[in-house]
Each structure stands twice: as structure tokens, then as C-alpha cells.
């Protein structure tokens, strides 16, 4: 199987889905001739023309709003938000218009809104966001975030074919750093299914996105010290895969929740609540959360490193947990 980058896998999904379904089109800032700020859409306009690859003005509300309208006409728009941070500018359109349409009207909004999220690249407070918790309290939206190239392609294809609005967060740190085997043949990774990235018996590290690699590295270190950590990659943030989560907790009885967004109000809360309510009997220790510090994402590398939850902190937390 060909080995491709995470970024290339996303690009392939767009190419494939546009070939497969003439209703799919893409819209966003600088995605045409320029190929997008990160070159995710490179070559698309040459292949599919400017009627299906639309360079938009700097108007996130218009991009998402017109995507909703086009979806009402049977199209399947894929919107690029140049940096996912700017999704704040169309928060209203997503949470109020897109998310509620099916419930109110029976009229679905099959759009995908995708964009680069996450830190670790010196992007500072407005180019590093992990916005999942902003949207978690809005029924009607789905959210996914792949950590591998395989999932990046398969989840994007699933998102495009989904009949509901899907937010697709791609972690920019992984774009060119992560490579793995990605089939040329058509496949999807279903929304709503987590993956066990490493099996273990002593604790479960539940995470997603770039933090999967932090967790795996920490798990390696822990193994050397005799602690076997299971690493769960959520992949789908809404809906969450309760079965995989609870199965893992039943097995390990200890939970470390790890995410890159800041701690307070992050998705870790939701996970803690689900586990605390539905796996209470299995827990041998408090559920621990580890996340970025409660501050905007700082710019200076010295600060950002201190801000993000790194391997050392994961290892420490895990050890505390198994010693409880």
C-alpha cells in the first residue's frame, strides 16, 4: 500500500469524493490557484475547475452560510477554514443554522467544515486553537479529528457522505510529520468509532489528534518502567464512542484523559462525566485530566512548550494514577 502523509491523505479524499460525486464541491479562502494556505487543495482547481473549487472572500459566515444554502439544493459542500481558529467567526451560522435545520425542518445540512487546528508550531493565540469544546454542547453537529493518514482520508470521506454537518479538524502539526499506509481503493472510517492504538492493562489514556503521539511516546516510556498503558484514539468527538471508552476502563480501571485544548471546559469534562457515571464501579482511582494550561496559546516556543501537555507530564500523571 502506498505510504502518504496525513496532508496528502486529506487531499486524496477530496479528489476522490469530487470524482465520485458531482455534488461535492469545495469552497474557502485561497484554495484555488494557490492550493490553500497549507496546500491541502493543491491541484483541485486544475482537475475540477473553478465552478467546483471556489475561492471565497474573507467571509467565514458567507462561506458556511452559502454552503448551507447549496446543500439545500442537493450539493455536498466542503468548506475550508484557513485556520480553524476563524471558525469562531461563523460560530452562529454553524450552531444555529446548520445544527438545527434537520430537527426544526426535517431538512438535513450535509456540509463539511474542515481546517487546520492545534499548536506546537509557533502559531500563537490565533493560529493554534483546538475548538472542539465550543461545539460539543450543540446537538446536531458531528465532529471528528484524525490522527493518522489512514483515518484522515477515511474520516473525510465519511464526513462528506454524511447527511449531517460535520466539523473536521485536521491537526496542522501532523500534516507533513505523519505518514502511513493509505489504500488507493475506496474506504471510509465510520464516524463514531474510536481506535485502540496500544493495548495495555494498567491505565487507559484517552486522547485524540496530535496528543495520540504524545500518549504513545509516554506509553513507551511507561512500559520501560513496567506500566502498561492502553491508548485510545477517539477519532470521533461527536458522537463519542462510549463502548470503546467504557470497555477500556472496565479493563484498566484507571483513566487519564488527555487533550490539547485548555483544561477547564474542555472535552475531558464530558469524558469524565460519561466514565464517572457509567463505569463508576470499575474505577480504582480518580479520573485524571491533563491538558494545556488555562491560558491563551502563547507564541514564544519557550512558552508554548510549557503550555502544552508534553510527554513528561503524561508520564508523571500516569505514574501518579497507577500508584493511587
Amino acid at each position, binding site marked *: 500500500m502506498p505510504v502518504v502523509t496525513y496532508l496528502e491523505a486529506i487531499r486524496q479524499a477530496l479528489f476522490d469524493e469530487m470524482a465520485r*460525486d458531482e*455534488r461535492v*464541491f469545495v469552497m474557502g479562502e485561497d484554495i484555488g490557484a494557490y492550493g490553500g494556505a497549507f496546500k491541502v487543495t493543491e491541484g483541485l482547481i486544475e482537475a475540477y475547475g473553478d*465552478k*467546483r473549487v*471556489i475561492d*471565497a*472572500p474573507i*467571509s*467565514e*459566515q*458567507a*462561506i*458556511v*452560510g*452559502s*454552503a*448551507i*444554502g*447549496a*446543500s*439545500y*439544493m*442537493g*450539493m455536498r*459542500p466542503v468548506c475550508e477554514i484557513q485556520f480553524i481558529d476563524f471558525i469562531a467567526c461563523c460560530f*452562529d*451560522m454553524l450552531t*444555529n*443554522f446548520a445544527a*438545527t*435545520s*434537520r*430537527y*426544526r*425542518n*426535517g*431538512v*438535513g445540512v*450535509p456540509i463539511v467544515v474542515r481546517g487546520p487546528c492545534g499548536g506546537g508550531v509557533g502559531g500563537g493565540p490565533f493560529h493554534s486553537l483546538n475548538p472542539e469544546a465550543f461545539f460539543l454542547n450543540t*446537538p*446536531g453537529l*458531528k465532529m471528528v479529528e484524525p490522527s493518522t493518514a489512514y483515518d484522515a482520508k477515511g474520516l473525510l470521506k465519511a464526513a462528506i457522505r*454524511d*447527511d*449531517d454537518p460535520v466539523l473536521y479538524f485536521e491537526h496542522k502539526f501532523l500534516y507533513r510529520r505523519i505518514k502511513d499506509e493509505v489504500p488507493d481503493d475506496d474506504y471510509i472510517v465510520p464516524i463514531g468509532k474510536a481506535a485502540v492504538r496500544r493495548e495495555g492493562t494498567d491505565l487507559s489514556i484517552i486522547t485524540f489528534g496530535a496528543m495520540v503521539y504524545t500518549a504513545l511516546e509516554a506509553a513507551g516510556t511507561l512500559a520501560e518502567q513496567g506500566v502498561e498503558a492502553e491508548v485510545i484514539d477517539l477519532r470521533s468527538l461527536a458522537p463519542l464512542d462510549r463502548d470503546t471508552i467504557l470497555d477500556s476502563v472496565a479493563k484498566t480501571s484507571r483513566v487519564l484523559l488527555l487533550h490539547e485544548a485548555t483544561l477547564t471546559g474542555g472535552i475531558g469534562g464530558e469524558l469524565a462525566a460519561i466514565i464517572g457515571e457509567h463505569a463508576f464501579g470499575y474505577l480504582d482511582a480518580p479520573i485524571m485530566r491533563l491538558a494545556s494550561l488555562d491560558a491563551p496559546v502563547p507564541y514564544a516556543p519557550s512558552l508554548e512548550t510549557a503550555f502544552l501537555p508534553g510527554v513528561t507530564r503524561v508520564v508523571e500523571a500516569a505514574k501518579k494514577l497507577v500508584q493511587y
Partner: protein
Amino acid sequence: MAKASKKPEKASDSLASNQLLEMYWFGRLAREIEERLVILFRQSKVIGGLYRSLGQEGESVGTAYALKKSDAVLPLIRNMGALMTMGIRPREIFLQYMAKGESNTRGRDLNIHIVHMPAWTRDLALTADQGRPGVDHDEPVVVGPISMLGDSIPVAAGIGMGARMRGRDLVSMAWIGDGATSTGAFHEGLNFAAVQKAPLVVVAEDNKFAYSTPISKQMAIKRIDERAAAYGIPHEMVDGNDILAVYDVAKRMVDRARAGEGASLIGVDTMRMQGHAQHDDARYVPKTLVEEWQKKDPLTLFAKTLMDRGAANEKRITEVDRMAKSYAAEEADAAEQSPMPDPATVARGVYAGDDYAEPTLEFVKSPFWEKQ
């Protein structure tokens, strides 16, 4: 340049008598429905507030009448006339206002958030490989709005763009209040539509107030159509209470949209003749302003036009008025019989695959309708 020797031709000149009567009917029906709603409201049968279009029925009908029945509309809270013109059945309005389970939003959305998506939009959504659907459906798209003002403009632009991508002959028309033109969504949506030459007509209604806020606190321009000057699209101002004048401008704008010439904006000069909603006594509105506009009631003026043009005599008009009143009453009564939504359904249909109920689809033609 020599002076033009004859008046420019107006689209309204070639409207047949039955068409003129039909327009009157739509306007009158809108008013009668709202009168009925006031009664229901007083009986506490309307859920929530009651927002009326009293005095603005003319612009709603005049603009919507320029559309084909297969076009798309995005009305707001004062476009009952447009809804009637597009063929929404009054019963649906009453069902919706009383939050009944058989309403198209199944009692889920606000009373004025009327939605009506014809079956063909569902076909489009469901079948990937069906090719381009035909254009012979005689059913409009009525997009259910949300409360956040301005948001319907980007959506309207997308409707136009999406329909064009699907190869459909469709013009999208959206109404918006003076106040709502101050929103960012309005700006972003209309600018994008202009660049994309989307088949969109925006009707910006200067009805002098946004809730209690006079237009002077809303914008520093005097003519609302100048909102469009920032987008490089045609814009015109029209007397919103002169139905045929409205129709003429709308026809031009709709035709150019259909011909692929892109978006435009119509500014209508009109007046909200009651408070923002029934709870609002509109104390802040100068009496003289109301009196001035009372003389310009669009339906009264139009009745006169009908008679002038020999399309109807007074008797016929009185007859139509009575028809409208009793039709509204019948439809209201029928709607009242409908059950409230079943609480057991409350959490259903948030995501696909759990769509427990398809909306009821039922467009109506006016009694004056002939294949035109």
C-alpha cells in the same frame, strides 16, 4: 438627446386581469390570516409573540409575484404576502402558529419560521447518480429562517449558487428588514453573492423601525438601497405600498438574475403599521407618521388600481375580501383541530437516520390561477 416619445414599457402593463386579482387576493389573504391570528393570539392559542406585516403586504406580494412558482424564497417575519404568493397553504401558517404536531416544523420552530421544501429538493439530496433533475416542478422552495437576523442572506446566496450548479433554472429571493442590514451576515452574504453573480434578489424593507429603533440610529444613509453600493450590484428604491411599482422593479431584477447577470437589491419604502409585535404598543412611533402612512394602505390603493384598470369592480373586490376572510377562518378552524406534538418525539430527528416524520407537502394555487 431627443426626449423619449413614449413611456417605457412596464411589466405590470401586461398583467392580465386574473393576475391582478390574484395579486390582490394574496395581499388580502395575508392580511386576513393575520387578523385571524390576532384573534387566536388573544385566545392564547398562538404560541409566543405575534409579528404582523400590516401595511407591508404590498411589497411582499409585488416582489414574490415576479418569481416563478419554482423559485426559492427566504421570507422573514413580515412576509406573509410572499408566503401566500408562493402558494403556502394558510392552514400551514395556522398550524405553525399554534405549534401543532402537523405543522411543517412539527411544532419545533418559532411560529413565523415557515418552511416548505418540495419533494424535488429531497430527491436532489438523496440520489447521487440521478443526473440533473428536470425543471418542470411547479413548487417553490421556502427556506425556514432562523431568528439570527442576516443569516438568511448567505444561505440565499448559496441556494442560488447551488441551484445553478445543479443546472436548475432558479432565482432566490430574500427579504430583510432595515435593522437586519446592519448585521455582518448580510454584508458577507451579499458581497459573496455579488462576486459569484448568484441568481439572488434581496428585498430590503425600510419600514422605518427595527423593533423600537428608528432607521436613523440604524444607518447613516437615507436610502436603504444604498446598502448595495458596497457590492457593485444594481439597486433601486421603490414605493413599497404601490404593488405594481414593486412588481415592475422586482421583475427586472428577477429577470436579470435568471439571465445570469447576478445579484441585486431592491429597497422598499414602507411602514410597519403596528408595533414590533402584539406586546408592543409602539409608543415610540410618532403619530403623524402613522397617519401619513394610513393614507397609503397598499391594499386600498391596489383595489383602486384594479378598478381603474377594469380588472374588477367594487362588488368583485368586496367578494374577494369576503372569500379571503372566510378562507382564513376555515383554515384556522381546521388547524385548531390538529393535535399538539407528541412529547415522545421530542428528542428525535436531530441527526439523519432518525427522521421519524417527513414534513407534509402541500402547496396551493390561488382561485385566480390559470396556467400563465
